[in-house]
């Protein structure tokens, strides 16, 4: 039977959770409530007047094919960022796990990019691939490849995915490595004695045993790709060329802060809120079942 620690009375527990509740209320419920309220109006930028439109903002957005296209862009972008950053991190973690000498240095070096803010990472990658002074662009030119993410939609998407995934690899690496090291050596050794080769051991034992970590990272990385990549997009492509890298969060910014269309911007925030809630529910209901703790 599970052992639970319990407090007597109501006041003390309430007092203990109060700070957390206050923080959540002030920084989450209040602004979210504001967004829902504002999404029902078309306000003027200065807050001088508001026109009640009911669900008009949602109707306007969902009937707009450029907004709908932004969903597809976001899906492609999030899937790519998540799979690239998790895939590379897992690969590096497996290598680091096998390393005996110098592993500390190796790990420390791998963790550094995590300290780089998305906007700064964006600027770094932008300079490497700049069409005029970029180092990588120059080498690609020597190979006869004309890199131009300013006009080529695929290259633009590739670049923002790389820049967004790069900083994230460190974070994922840390978790994967910790997960790998938590797997008892004896289990692996027993399998090795039974003649299982590395790939078989990885596929049938290590990866399933790693699944709680993988699941956690999946949720965290998708949320990252949805919300925290704004800096990268803003510094590298500003959503272009055409609308190739306009993800949903970038559109919230563009409509709200560039266009001063707060009604549309709020409605988009609400849609995003619903979308991410749904995504999290799906992840916990369907993927978590396959996770072995």
């Amino acid at each position, binding site marked *: 039977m599970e052992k639970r620690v319990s407090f007597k009375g109501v006041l003390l527990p309430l007092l203990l959770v109060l700070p957390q509740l206050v923080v959540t209320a002030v920084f989450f419920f209040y602004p979210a409530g504001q967004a829902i309220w504002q999404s029902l109006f*078309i*306000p*003027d*930028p*200065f*807050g*001088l*007047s508001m*026109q009640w*439109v009911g669900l008009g903002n949602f109707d*306007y957005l969902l009937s*707009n094919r*450029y907004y709908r296209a932004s969903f597809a862009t976001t899906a492609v972008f999030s899937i790519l960022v998540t799979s690239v950053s998790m895939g590379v991190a897992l690969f590096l973690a497996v290598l680091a796990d096998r390393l005996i000498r110098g592993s500390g240095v190796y790990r420390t070096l791998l963790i550094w990019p995590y300290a780089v803010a998305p906007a700064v990472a964006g600027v770094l990658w932008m300079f490497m691939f700049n*069409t*005029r002074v970029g180092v990588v662009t120059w080498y690609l030119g020597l190979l006869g490849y004309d890199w131009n993410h*300013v*006009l*080529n*939609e695929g290259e633009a998407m590739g670049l923002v995915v790389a820049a967004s995934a790069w900083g994230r690899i460190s974070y994922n690496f840390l978790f994967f490595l910790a997960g790998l090291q938590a797997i008892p050596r004896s289990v692996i050794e027993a399998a090795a004695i039974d003649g299982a080769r590395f790939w078989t051991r990885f596929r049938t034992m290590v990866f399933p045993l790693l699944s709680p970590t993988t699941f956690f990272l999946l949720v965290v990385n998708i949320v990252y790709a949805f919300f925290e990549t704004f800096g990268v997009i803003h510094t590298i492509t*500003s*959503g*272009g*060329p*055409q*609308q190739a890298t306009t993800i949903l969060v970038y559109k919230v910014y*563009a*409509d709200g*802060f*560039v*266009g*001063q*269309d707060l*009604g*549309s911007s709020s409605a988009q925030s609400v849609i995003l809120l619903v979308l991410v809630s749904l995504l999290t529910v799906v992840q916990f209901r369907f993927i978590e079942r396959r996770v072995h703790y």
Partner: protein
Amino acid sequence: MKLRSFFSTAVSAIVIAAPAVAQTQIDFWHAFTGRLGDLVAEQVAAFNAGQSDYVVVANNKGNYSETLNAGIAAFRADEQPDILMVFEVGTATMMAAKGAIKPVYQVMADAGAAFDPDAFIGAVKGYYTSTEGEMLSLPFNSSTPVLWVNRDALKAAGIDPDTDLSTWQKVGAVLDQLKAAGHTCPLTTAWQSWIHLENLSAYHNVPFATKDNGFGGLDTELVLNGPVQVAHIQAMGDWARDGKFVYKGRRNEGGADFRAGTCALFTESSAGYAGIKTEAQFDFAVRPLPYWEGVAGAPQNTIIGGASLWVMAGQTPEEYKGVAAFLNFLSSPEIQAKWHQDTGYLPITATAADLTRAQGFYDANPGTDIAVEQMTANVPTGNSKGLRLGSFDQIRSIIDEELEAVWAGDKTAQAALDSAVERGNELLRRFEAANR
């Protein structure tokens, strides 16, 4: 020791600041950094030193969009500055915000300040005056697009650097020659919507939007998909396909390429002068913006880009007096002439232009008066007075996206501009609804 020096600094700061208590503080938020920011600080310091009733405190609030947002957020929190710099595309937003601003003509009248709106150059003034002829905001920095030429690049391709580049037909022929000579970037541009659609329309006297480009009412609609615009964008698209026009980005990314000598011809604001003069290691020239020969009414006049100063509502009468004094100071011929010569922005008053000529600046820097001449060549028409469209910053983003589709060869000029009109009109209708 450290503590003592801190206190002595603090005490001396208080002593110096003491006379300021009697002064009225005027807050001025602007969008300039770097060299332009220093020049603004210089103007403010000169004003503060020249009188003792008011003290202007200037603050940079980021780029144009960020400054406008800072002003809006401050207004909502009842903390707005006295003067807010707003770029020209934000003009309609500010005009529609009737309770948030105090028109400049009214500020001047209430303060009893001598102010003559007719002193301003027509094409500059027109952008910021109401249809009744009342000046709503004070023009500050205004520029207009011109053609920058790398003379050395033309020579290297065996072209006479003094060749006539006044029409796009002639520019097209030069681009052919540059391409044939193996040049990798014959032509590039900055601010594509501003130069190749907004100014193109005004310069050829065709409308960009109905209702006199939005001056006549919020129910305006875009008509930038007319034959003149389509023909121009198609020509540019064809040049892009053939590698004669190279697209570098939505803002002024192409400037770095031109200044580095990579590109031969460059359409950019006249205010690019300061940067090109400092950085270019080659012989350059400035020419008037080309026009299409054969279009009736061309060349008309080009329109401005830049920013103006808006006076915000809700301040004390004493502050408004100070604002009036400061704005009058800024438009004085000496200040304007210096600003014009330092930056390449237009002299916004005729007297400032005359003063600059009298000082011999145009003789020493040939071509710097071209922008002024190009703008003042003709009396502005309903199509060339300027643009007043809501959500214009976003409409420009839409135009950027559609033009990129043309440069990439994904769309024809007609299809792209039709789509820009359709998408832009949706935003105009929302702006109309928000400001009903």
